[in-house]
């Protein structure tokens, strides 16, 4: 191994030391079968906020209607009353057409805008094809300059668009880029373009299932078996934490029984950090863990403090 190769290996080992704790991942997996029940039943027993099913349909033909196939409605669900304290973020835009069989299974909000993933369930053993749609309100000038250098340009409903590999970016207005990506989708380029052509402004807001302070960054995943898990981030006392809300408890031998949010909680010492699991009742569990530093094991008091300050949506939106 020469010097460059040795340095590469040392650098990668350094990065490996920052591996995050496994708790939140295991928590999403370890859901006892006996407690598995349909999501609607969980919601019905968990609270009173009603969810309204809103059928999103195509409201207008795109400006390049001759080139765009007719849109097919996608059904989605939006909760109407966010309730106090629960934060909301705007969707801004939504696709109104997807290939047959694709359903939304993951939704989130990044520092730059909303972020959604759609999959089609495939046969056992094969990787499900996926389509992602995201809104970007960041680094517009840099993004535009970078994309405009691309020779692979295309009009998306009259707006300037650019293919970068299989990803389709288009500037829908002065301060917004939208992006459609595909993976494992046949005829990816045509599909991406058709999804993009179907995108319409969407004035709805989505509720943040778990938030801390000013942060509204989150992702929520529908596990497909009635279970779901949501993740967010928190910074408190100069440290970073991962916060999770899930139908899955973290199952292990508890290192210590503690109390958080007035409820029984368990503190675990994992190889790469501390993890707190709070049973919120109604089949929901709040997790707080410190992010990847091998040199710091967050004490239970610190995790409890974060847990107390987390804003939890009593009725997370999981079916869209």
């Amino acid at each position: 191994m020469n010097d460059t190769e040795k340095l590469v290996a040392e650098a990668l080992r350094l990065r490996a030391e920052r591996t995050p704790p496994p708790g939140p991942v295991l928590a999403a997996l370890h859901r006892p079968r006996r407690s598995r029940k349909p999501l609607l039943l969980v919601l019905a027993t968990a609270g009173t906020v009603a969810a309204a099913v809103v059928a999103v349909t195509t409201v207008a033909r795109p400006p390049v209607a001759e080139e765009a196939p007719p849109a097919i409605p996608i059904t989605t669900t939006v909760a109407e009353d966010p309730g106090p304290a629960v934060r909301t973020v705007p969707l801004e835009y939504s696709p109104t057409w997807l290939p047959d069989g694709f359903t939304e299974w993951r939704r989130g909000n990044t520092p730059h805008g909303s972020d959604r993933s759609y999959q089609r369930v495939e046969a056992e053993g094969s990787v499900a094809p996926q389509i992602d749609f995201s809104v970007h309100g960041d680094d517009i000038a840099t993004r535009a300059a970078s994309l405009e250098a691309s020779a692979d340009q295309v009009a998306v409903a009259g707006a300037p668009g650019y293919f970068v590999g299989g990803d389709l970016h288009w500037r829908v207005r002065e301060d917004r880029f939208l992006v459609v990506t595909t993976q494992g989708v046949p005829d990816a380029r045509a599909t991406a373009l058709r999804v993009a052509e179907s995108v319409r402004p969407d004035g709805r807001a989505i509720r943040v299932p778990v938030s801390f302070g000013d942060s509204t960054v989150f992702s929520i995943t529908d596990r497909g078996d009635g279970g779901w898990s949501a993740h967010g981030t928190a910074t408190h006392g100069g440290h970073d934490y991962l916060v999770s809300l899930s139908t899955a408890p973290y199952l292990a031998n508890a290192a210590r029984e503690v109390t958080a949010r007035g409820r029984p909680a368990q503190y675990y010492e994992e190889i790469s950090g501390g993890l707190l699991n709070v049973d919120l009742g109604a089949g929901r569990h709040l997790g707080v863990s410190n992010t990847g530093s091998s040199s710091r094991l967050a004490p239970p008091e610190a995790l409890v403090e974060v847990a107390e300050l987390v804003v939890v949506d009593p009725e997370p939106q999981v079916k869209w």
Partner: protein
Amino acid sequence: MTTSFEEFAAAQVTPLLRYATVLTGDPHLAQDVVQECLLRAQQRWARISGVDAPVAYLKRMVTNEYLSWRRRLKTHLPLTGVDPPGPDLTGHYDEREDMLQRIDKLPRKQKAAVVLRFYEGFDDAEIAATLGCSQGTVRSHISRALATLRAAEKVKEAL
């Protein structure tokens, strides 16, 4: 004896997270990627547990997720921003951090090949199986990546 999914996940989640962290450079994304892969594996465990090497299968899934999650890579915090480095006691820290930044700028398949070779210690055949390409392509990825990294080193030295 067939391993249950729960046993498999408990044993493999940390190695998979470590691999995903090295690959993505982002602990949040690493958790997302590994969680997604394990959830998929859980749904198909009856089939996956029957393959010769479920661990290698999962590593392929994680690699594929990384290679396809282009957009998310841009929207997560960089690892150094999540967990600021501590004091450098070896005098070697900046060099490794610089190298990580250079590695992060490599094309994704080149980066994956580099991680598999220099972190996982895979040979050409194992990397080819993981990336789904020929051994010749693996050698090309690694050769080009090292040439880029060496060139960047030379530029840095010249400044």
